[in-house]
């Protein structure tokens, strides 16, 4: 029987950094991935002369070599920085509305504030108050948790104690009176999956803080380049990777991991498994139900599945300027609502007035697509469940009907797009489900309610001995959190090994 120090299930962001982290410390690690390429969400695919980015819009936490952010430091510790080229985006985000309203924010605190002050002179004081609070909160959060203050207190960190669990909309309502401004500063809810009345202020504060302080980034060659670079490091440190090879079972005996069985029926002996698969799949499909400790399903049952997404990938036979696209990250809004009402379109199949984000990487990186062309990735959040009720025979028709509606929304702002389309691919919630293997195609794992944040749930740990998790299912989701989740899972395994 084959034997490994650790087996990592899934080569998504978390699985990759976990396996690379372990292999770097000399462990004999097997990485198993169902798909033929590494990356999970962090992949690309080719159509014609285009290579489309699947999921990365704005990489957070990178910073510059002079002022490195946490993610840059993690990637440096894996030794992959030399194999990658990061592209800083000067834009924070742009907002476009069909009535002609436009707002373009640069990833710079002073400029963000001055642009907002200019558009909303009556809210000048509020705008400053908001960003002061964002920074105060973020700095207190970092001091207490990232730099691990040994004696934190409410007196030292008043904003942290007051705002960590407070819903974002309550904070916004206290500060702003202009509903448009409030909602413009809430557009990042799309990166988190819940409207601001259901998200804690903490998420918004940290997102603004990391994007402004460490800038949003993209990667030459897309997120696939990151996945390939980490895989490459893993392999060169002696790791074994098998693609096109899923896992059928995690063998658990007497409450501890004994090994795994692959889809091909190979038995592999190991004491440690890091699962990059969803917790739902891990506990209901991979581990035998009698080996799942009491309480695990009950704990998980309190959480809910995040939305999936409807995504269009378009390759144009012209440069972005010709289409009127001048910014990398564009939020297309059709209304100023950021309350629970945004959940209604997410719960239906059809597309009409939802919020969308359209990323055109070529604006920041002219080499992203072939010369004289550009590509966009347009995404809107959709729960997977309504899509699961579509009869298979109707699937293609409905998929194209929705895509047509999405295209019309884009045409309303960039009228010339259709005559320049050279390639176009559509991904529905079922497509995301297919490639991620997530129940209901949930792209963000479980929903990121405060009650399900890292403070309140088991995170990467499992009551099953030797089993750890590294993914967007164990707390925060997104590129930076999942990449770092894998690093943490590797550390947990190493710590456990050293203590034995």
């Amino acid at each position, binding site marked *: 029987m084959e034997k490994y120090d650790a087996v990592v299930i899934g080569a998504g962001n978390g699985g990759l950094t976990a396996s690379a982290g372990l292999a770097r410390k000399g462990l004999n690690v097997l990485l198993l991935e169902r798909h033929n390429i590494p990356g999970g969400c962090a992949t690309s695919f080719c159509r014609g002369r285009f290579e489309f980015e699947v999921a990365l819009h704005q990489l957070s936490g990178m910073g510059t070599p002079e002022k490195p952010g946490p993610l840059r430091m993690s990637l440096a510790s894996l030794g992959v920085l030399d194999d990658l080229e990061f592209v800083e985006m000067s834009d924070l985000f742009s907002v476009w509305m069909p009535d002609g309203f436009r707002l373009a924010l640069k990833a710079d605190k002073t400029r963000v504030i001055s642009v907002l002050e200019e558009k909303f002179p009556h809210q000048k004081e509020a705008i400053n108050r908001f960003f002061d609070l964002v920074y105060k909160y973020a700095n207190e959060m970092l001091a207490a948790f990232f730099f691990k203050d*040994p004696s*934190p207190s409410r007196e030292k960190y008043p904003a942290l104690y007051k705002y960590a*669990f407070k819903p974002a909309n309550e904070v916004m309502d206290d500060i702003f009176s202009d509903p448009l401004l409030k909602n413009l500063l809430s557009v990042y809810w799309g990166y988190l999956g819940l409207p601001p009345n259901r998200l804690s202020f903490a998420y918004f504060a940290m997102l603004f803080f990391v994007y402004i302080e460490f800038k949003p980034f993209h990667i030459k060659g897309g997120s696939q380049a990151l996945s390939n670079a980490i895989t490459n490091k893993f392999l060169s440190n002696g790791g074994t990777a098998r693609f096109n090879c899923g896992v059928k079972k995690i063998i658990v005996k007497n409450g501890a991991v004994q090994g795994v069985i692959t889809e091909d029926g190979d038995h592999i002996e190991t004491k440690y498994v890091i699962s990059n698969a969803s917790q739902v799949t891990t506990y209901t*499909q991979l581990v035998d139900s009698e080996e799942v400790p009491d309480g695990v399903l009950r704990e998980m*049952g309190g959480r809910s599945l995040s939305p999936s997404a409807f995504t269009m990938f378009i390759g144009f*036979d012209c440069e972005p300027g010709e289409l009127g696209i001048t910014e990398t990250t564009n939020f297309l809004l059709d209304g100023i609502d950021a309350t629970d009402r945004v959940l209604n379109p997410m719960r239906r199949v059809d597309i009409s007035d939802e919020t969308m984000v359209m990323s055109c990487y070529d604006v920041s990186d002219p080499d992203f697509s072939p010369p004289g062309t550009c590509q966009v990735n347009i995404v809107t959040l959709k729960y997977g469940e309504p899509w699961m009720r579509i009869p298979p025979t109707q699937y293609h028709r409905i998929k194209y009907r929705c895509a047509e509606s999405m295209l019309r929304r884009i045409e309303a702002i960039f009228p010339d797009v259709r005559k320049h389309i050279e390639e176009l691919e559509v991904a529905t919630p079922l497509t995301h*489900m297919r490639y991620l293997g997530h129940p209901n195609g949930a792209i963000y794992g479980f929903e990121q309610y405060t009650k399900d944040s890292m403070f309140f749930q088991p995170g990467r740990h499992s009551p099953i001995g030797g089993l750890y998790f590294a993914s967007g299912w164990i707390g925060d989701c997104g590129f930076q959190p999942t990449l770092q989740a894998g690093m943490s899972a590797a550390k947990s395994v190493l710590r456990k090994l050293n203590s034995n």
Partner: protein
Amino acid sequence: MKKPIFKEFDGYNGIVEEIETSRKYGTDYAVYRDSVDKQINLLHPSRMKLHISEIIDETSSTKTLRLVSQDGYLPPFLAGQYIALFLELSGIRTSRPYTISSPPNQTGFYEITIRRVEDGLVSNYLLDEVKKGDGLESSGPAGQFYHNPLFHDRTMVCIAGGSGITPFRSMIREIVECGLERAIYIFYGNKNLNDAIFHDELRSLSDRFENINYLPVIEEPQEGYEGPTGFITGDLIREIIGEPAEKTFYLCGPQGMYDFCVPELERLGIPKRKIRKDVYGAPAHICDYPGWPEEIKADEVFAVKVDGGPTIEARAGEPLMLALEKKGMKISSLCRSGECSKCRVKILSGKVFQPAWVPVRKSDRQFGYVHSCVSFPVADLEILL
């Protein structure tokens, strides 16, 4: 920081209550078990068990196999897509993609149409040995060659060579049988008229339906043949279709046909985005390919060390994937034309020839990955599967 300070944060008690409530009325995830696989199998099963319900003679070198599902379920597909058959012949585990030639509205079966390939291991088997009732294993439907209603024109100009007619047969049948608002011009090139697959059917549809225009083009016509002859030229296309604006062009056939017809279309001023090409397997004579290292002959043999273990021999003139299959190596495959990247392998040392058009991801190129179905060894190799 050891102290769990979050318990002192404002709102903590409310959240603890919320957790209890949500667990009490929570989701039973046990019912999700294999829900993802079940859902996805309705559209994209990785494997299907089929059997042959009918074998239809088309031409002297071509037959159509009608395939029904062993469990009664066939996933939907788009006209133009293919399935790959997975077979084990003379001890070799291999696969071949075949376009579904029946229309998608025919939900009871798929048809695939097979033309004999000289010394073709699989085509000879499918044409000479399989019989009604035999089982076959296939992939789910796949492929990017279909009419995309979002940006393709309603008038389709199709150019087919040889067995490249199959996707268009599916499309034409769907258009007439479902009454779609689309028109098709189909130019079908063959050596002689007897080779033209579905000729009678297409002629008859062309006679009956105003929106179907079928035009066989014969390279070596028999005496007295009155239709167009030679190659499918830009002039011929222009003469038949009139103004090329608001038409999308689709090509399916051997590489030689693309090499000839694409420049002809470009000469008519048709932009790249209006020209769609189907994949059609690996180039047959790689040594004649532009860029091939002249000094290397097709029969030259190189040593390939696989996964640090066994070393096998591979011929320069044969795709690396085929050499691996012949030695019993397990390698995933689907399109066998360079497009799907299923058969991606890492070249640790040595060199392969891979045509420049093969869509390999940029970072895959950076880290030495190739698509082994269209990569040909030109040196001794060490590879990682």
